[in-house]
């Protein structure tokens, strides 16, 4: 390195005071250096201290945390030694932060223009008259269409991707030398994510900024970082060039992490990482990862490994850098995805289901006014016994809405939902019989919200058992223990409350509760998206096992195409509440495919340094479907012509139950569109 690092963190220890004045460490001896024009990725699971580290780089600690040792040098001076006034000038000026959820960090009551103006007022010397021109210039740089109109909008009038772009524009307003990005694209759609990362890469190059990305997603890191630092339990366990770390990481944890990520090109189940990381602030002797490491020896448990040279130019905190290659970095936890026989009878049938959130007012009905396009329209599909059907689409594609309608939590405006193919289900829960309700269970996205924090695991599991089977006493107890065993939690969990469980354990309890009803169909709404990757793999494995043992049918909703691929027999692709394509997984993921499927698949980020997403040059999310014609008409890169705007496209069968809804002939859909 020729020039001195811009951000230089040396031996940083951060902790909080526990009972009796002991200091519990959250970060332990972390060193990192980032130069101008370089981008560093900080990877770790939740609780690894990665966000604390990023905030510490700004000289900021969350309430309750204190710096115990070390220094954070920015531009030659320790951030913690600077005066509050100086910090105020640097933060948001030369050192920008882009937070995870920009929707929440923008002030809801101020227009975008006012918020950008505020930053300009604080951090740049331009005369006031030029502020608006500068704001427009900034919004243009982050490629927001019609910047002049956006200045006058309020944050809620923008989509998630647009809000993130505004946050980037605001960070750029102070002409920063360095940007800290805390999970900058988590929560955004794949297509939006790929576009934002492209923009950030370009900005880093043109402005020679130092970038620090914090992320749990190795796909993001692979796309934008030159170097990677892997944090585990507040310690640096691996640091090295991104390409090397992603191809052949020199630390067992990083290898296991790579193996736990489902890949688009891979139909094997990812391999789960057993155990859980030590909780923040816990003391351990020896290697923090020893308990979960396949290579761990007695020495690992007693002796803290120093940073040593690993393969290539990586440095690793492992006692056996020569042996790490024994751990496979590709999935295949041994489990083979279950496949459902093609002649199995239908378990659930949807006929022309249409859902509207907006109810027509009396006046509109009297005047026969046309309704706005429905949120979900004309969904017809069958789910066979023992089959798992994946539903993919961006946010707003209506996938969760459809699940809610099937579960009876939302009444469809039109259409029918049938159990098997003959029993008509009531539109809402109140109109369904208990045994119908029992056969259909739903697992929600976020276990923090779907488990009552005031109930113990026993109370949670006993609800369906009492309701449907009237179990009491010993029988109830036995059944609960059996259920916990089935999700690989022990009887000791019965007395715990959700607050005492990790994210993965909570989701297992939620799965166990669904299976307590002995259901035929389980609806899974993004059930792994709130989990860490290593935990996610374990939940996927569990679902696969349950499917094999019980022959349960699943509808698996996710925005993650790789996850849907490993779990599903068939996949349905949704855009704006309309089906675009449906068919066997392998057929949907290969050619020919609907242009929207193609756009989605191309935008996926893989944890592979050689993989680059192929993007459409102009692509943006839409908030509502068009009134007529193909729902994808406004974004379609290969529009057939005026017919797309007037007529709903026909279903075209390619055989084997694979159907695509497009005006273009199948031969035209054979070729890759993007790239």
């Amino acid at each position, binding site marked *: 390195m020729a020039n001195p690092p811009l951000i230089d963190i040396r031996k940083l220890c951060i902790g909080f005071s526990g009972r009796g004045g002991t200091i519990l460490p959250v970060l332990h001896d972390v060193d990192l250096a980032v130069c101008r024009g370089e981008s560093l990725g900080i990877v770790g699971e939740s609780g690894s201290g990665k966000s604390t580290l990023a905030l510490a780089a700004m000289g900021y600690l969350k*309430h309750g945390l204190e710096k115990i040792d070390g220094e954070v040098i920015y531009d030659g001076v320790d951030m913690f030694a600077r005066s509050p006034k100086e910090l105020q000038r640097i933060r948001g000026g030369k050192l920008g932060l882009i937070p995870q959820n920009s929707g929440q960090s923008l002030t809801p009551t101020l227009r975008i223009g006012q918020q950008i103006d505020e930053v300009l007022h604080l951090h740049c010397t331009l005369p006031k008259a030029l502020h608006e021109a500068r704001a427009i210039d900034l919004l243009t740089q982050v490629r927001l269409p019609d910047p002049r109109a956006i200045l006058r909008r309020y944050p809620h009038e923008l989509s998630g991707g647009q809000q993130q772009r505004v946050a980037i524009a605001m960070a750029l307003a102070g002409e920063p030398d360095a940007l800290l990005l805390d999970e900058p694209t988590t929560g955004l759609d794949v297509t939006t994510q790929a576009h934002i990362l492209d923009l950030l890469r370009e900005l880093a190059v043109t402005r020679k900024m130092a970038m620090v990305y914090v992320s749990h997603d190795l796909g993001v890191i692979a796309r934008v970082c030159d170097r990677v630092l892997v944090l585990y339990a507040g310690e640096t366990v691996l640091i090295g060039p991104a390409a090397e770390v992603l191809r052949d990481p020199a630390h067992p944890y990083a290898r296991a992490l790579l193996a736990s990520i489902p890949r688009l090109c891979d139909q094997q189940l990812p391999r789960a990482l057993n155990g859980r990381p030590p909780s923040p602030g816990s003391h351990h002797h020896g290697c923090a990862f020893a308990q979960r490491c396949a290579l761990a020896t007695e020495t690992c448990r007693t002796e803290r490994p120093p940073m040593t040279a690993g393969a290539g130019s990586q440095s690793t905190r492992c006692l056996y850098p020569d042996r790490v290659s024994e751990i496979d970095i590709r999935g295949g936890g041994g489990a083979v995805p279950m496949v459902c026989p093609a002649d199995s009878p239908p378990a659930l049938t949807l006929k022309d289901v249409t859902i509207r959130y907006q109810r027509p007012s009396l006046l509109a009905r009297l005047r026969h006014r046309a309704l706005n396009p429905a949120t979900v329209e004309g969904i017809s599909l069958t789910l066979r016994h023992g089959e798992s059907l994946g539903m993919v689409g961006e946010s707003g594609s209506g996938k969760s809405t459809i699940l809610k309608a099937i579960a*009876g939590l939302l009444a469809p405006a039109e259409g029918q939902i049938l159990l098997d193919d003959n029993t008509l289900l009531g539109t809402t829960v109140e109109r369904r019989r208990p045994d119908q*309700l029992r056969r*259909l*269970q739903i697992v929600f996205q976020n276990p923090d*919200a779907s488990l009552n924090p005031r109930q113990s695991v026993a109370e949670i599991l006993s609800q369906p058992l009492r309701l449907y089977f009237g179990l009491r006493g010993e029988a109830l107890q036995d059944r609960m223990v059996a259920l916990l065993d089935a999700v690989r939690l022990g009887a000791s969990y019965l007395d715990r409350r959700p607050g005492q469980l990790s994210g993965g354990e909570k989701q297992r309890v939620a799965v166990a509760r669904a299976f307590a009803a002995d259901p035929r169909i389980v609806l899974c709404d993004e059930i792994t998206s709130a989990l860490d990757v290593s935990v996610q793999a374990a939940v996927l494995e569990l679902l696969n096992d349950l499917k094999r043992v019980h022959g349960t049918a699943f509808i698996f909703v996710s925005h993650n195409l790789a996850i849907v691929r490993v779990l599903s027999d068939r996949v349905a692709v949704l855009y704006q509440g309309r089906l675009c394509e449906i068919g066997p997984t392998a057929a949907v993921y290969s050619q020919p495919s609907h242009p929207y499927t193609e756009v989605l698949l191309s935008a996926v980020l893989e944890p592979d340094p050689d993989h680059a997403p192929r993007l459409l040059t102009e692509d943006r999310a839409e908030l509502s479907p068009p009134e007529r014609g193909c729902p994808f008409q406004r974004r379609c890169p290969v529009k057939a012509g005026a017919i797309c705007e007037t007529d709903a496209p026909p279903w075209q069968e390619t055989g084997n139950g694979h159907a695509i809804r497009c005006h273009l002939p199948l031969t035209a859909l054979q070729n890759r569109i993007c790239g």
Partner: protein
Amino acid sequence: MSTATLTARVVCILRDMLARPSGAIGLTLVGLHLVIAVTSPWIAPFDYTEMNATMTLSGPSAEHWLGTDHLGRDVFSRMLLGGREALLITGIATPVALLWGGFLGVFLGLRGGWLDEVLMRVVDAFLALPGILPLLVLITVFGSGGEVLMPTLAFFFGIPVIRVARAAAHEVVARDFISAARARGHRPLDIVRRELMPNVTDTLLVEGAMRWSWMLLGFSALSFLGFGVAPPRPDWGLMVSDARVYMSLAPWGVIAPVIALSTLIIGINLTADALAKTLGLDQSRKAVV
């Protein structure tokens, strides 16, 4: 929740509250008042009706620590005894107000729809009236004995609880575990009891403590106006009312009951504050870990 775990939780909460200055002071004040209220018939140096015509409106002395009132009754004894009726009536009316208001509020929060809309407008109408006014009307009609005061107070002080409970329930209703319970097909009352109530009890407890102090003030105001405790029985509000005429001659008569009432109110408010912090409802200074 079994009794053992409930006791353990109560002990745990009390311990945490006592560790905070507000909790320690608040609980001490409230505890002191309760002890006095229970034991005062035995510890009060004089009978509250005992008049001494030769010693009216006298200042503090060795015999009468806080002097005597216009009828020559011992102010100190009357002060000790003056909270009994207030504490008894509000002590019963507060939980009743909390229960009916809380249950109705939670139920409306879960159910929504037209019933919620109609009843909440009625609640709004009641809240728009100055609190003491409807109380006075009812008492004028039905008389002012404890058997009228208690249900009346419980009714009127339960109305604001509906609003608080409904708001707390709304926050919970949006969470997925309620959807999960609905999707399983539990009856609405079961959902209220098992899923909702445990999540709003903390809010209701703190609200209850606040309501209690308001109710004490309301009760004293009624007594002050002559609608509460009937003379000659001692009551702080009544004592202030009687003594205020002689304020310049014998300020003790006013100051003593005011101190008694305000220490109790301050004690309850401090306790509520500490309770809110202990239960994690007051997140203004929440630590990160």
